[in-house]
């Protein structure tokens, strides 16, 4: 873990003033969720599935271009998928059903289709989520979730987690610097005798910090709710801009279903 500028959680955010950045966060959350739903709803076995994936890809890349998210950033976001690429590569070998010969290997036809579909869908959703996190600050995401009526207690826990993730992460980082400057190298299970107590004392510090934060809040009149400004009404124009992504994807899906 390195101390990223803007913190562990803020590292995903790219400052900017594009139309995507300016959209209300809850609209963006609805848009990305809607897009993911359409992508997931696309039937894998349809002959036009790959044309639809192409259409979705064009839409999400357009959104990325408008938001000013560079291809390198998108590619880095995709690294999270690697374990599933491995799983998908195995699917054609273990799946049942009729076999096809590909480069001398007998691969399952349905496994190939399923693996392709899995990879395409996961990639498209990850790209959409990368555009969301690159154009929305973590705090704005919490505001968006609040406007989408996430239970207040959950919103508060989320707020505290995002607020203190960097503090706790920073303590962890300093512990690591201290350990390694004393010559610690974790190679095998015996390293647990050092790392276990380090994580344990990190918990004790986090918990005690939580108690102090709570007392500080009580002394400022905390009664179990965090007051917020009344939410401003969202113009229709903003809804239309935000929903362009999922509605465009739905149009691609609908034309596939009707014409295919």
């Amino acid at each position, binding site marked *: 873990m390195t101390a990223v500028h803007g913190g562990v959680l803020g590292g995903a955010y790219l400052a900017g003033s594009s139309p995507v950045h300016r959209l209300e966060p809850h609209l963006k959350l609805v848009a990305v969720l809607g897009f993911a739903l359409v992508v*997931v709803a696309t039937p894998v076995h349809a002959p036009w599935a790959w044309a639809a994936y192409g259409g979705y890809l064009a839409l999400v890349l357009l959104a990325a271009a408008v938001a000013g998210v560079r291809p390198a950033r998108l590619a880095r976001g995709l690294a999270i998928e690697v374990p599933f690429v491995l799983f998908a590569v195995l699917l054609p070998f273990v799946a049942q059903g009729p076999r096809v010969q590909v480069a001398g290997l007998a691969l399952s036809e349905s496994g190939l289709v399923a693996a392709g579909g899995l990879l395409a869908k996961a990639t498209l959703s990850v790209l959409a989520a990368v555009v969301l996190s690159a154009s929305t600050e973590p705090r704005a995401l919490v505001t968006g979730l609040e406007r989408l009526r996430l239970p207040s207690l959950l919103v508060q826990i*989320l707020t505290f987690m995002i607020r203190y*993730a960097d503090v706790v992460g920073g303590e962890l980082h300093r512990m690591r610097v201290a350990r390694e400057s004393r010559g610690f190298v974790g190679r095998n299970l015996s390293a647990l005798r050092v790392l276990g107590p380090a994580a344990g004392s990190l*918990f004790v510090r986090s918990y005690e910090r939580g108690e102090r934060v709570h007392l500080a809040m009580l002394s400022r009149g905390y009664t179990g709710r965090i007051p917020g400004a009344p939410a401003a009404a969202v113009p229709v124009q903003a809804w239309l801009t935000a929903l362009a992504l999922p509605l465009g994807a739905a149009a691609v899906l609908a034309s596939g279903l009707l014409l295919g």
Partner: protein
Amino acid sequence: MHVPDGFLDAPTSAATAAVAAGGVALALRGARRELDERTAPLAGLTAAFVFAVQMVNFPVGAGTSGHLMGGLLAAVLVGPWTAVLCLTVVLGVQALLFADGGLTALGTNVTLLGLVAVAVGWGVFRLLARLLPTTRGGVLTAAGVGAFLSVPVAALVFVGLFAVGGVADVPVGTVAAAMGGVHVLIGLGEAAITVAVVGAVLAVRPDLVHGARALRRATLLAERPASVPAGAR
């Protein structure tokens, strides 16, 4: 490793989302009993701790390293309901900020890594804690076994979901064997890390370990004065 979008079909994803929503609603009520009005700051800080500790790579031997899932660890430290909330928040942040786990699969991930892992781990932990002697060793053994079992059971529930709503036509037995085998190993790592961390907290602040309250009574440790002065409440 979190379930991405498109891995399970829509009805299965919707069903697990409903289960997750119900479980989290229960946990929101249960956590108030565990932490009273301190729920938000303490659960938030514990979630930050779980998030941070998931970034520590613990060496598990043979040159490989793993990181903690932390379900049972959080349950033993702060109580099962609060643990469910912490893991839910951590999974949500990972899905929203790092695209780790799909948004439409968030319900599945919360069900597996939050509800199933915590419920199984905590159930085993409580059962063993009752059977074993009320000592430090007893609590640590119960925590280790609970942490160990929580991982393969969550993996097998995933295989069950995959059999019901998976998009690939894969022999369920093969997947169950492979996933189970891999996750038995991961579970051993989870158990080792959980025992090491719980043991360390028990050594310095036994009063903070929710799952060891019986131990505190049995050994008649002197109560540390509450950090909240009586008048401040």
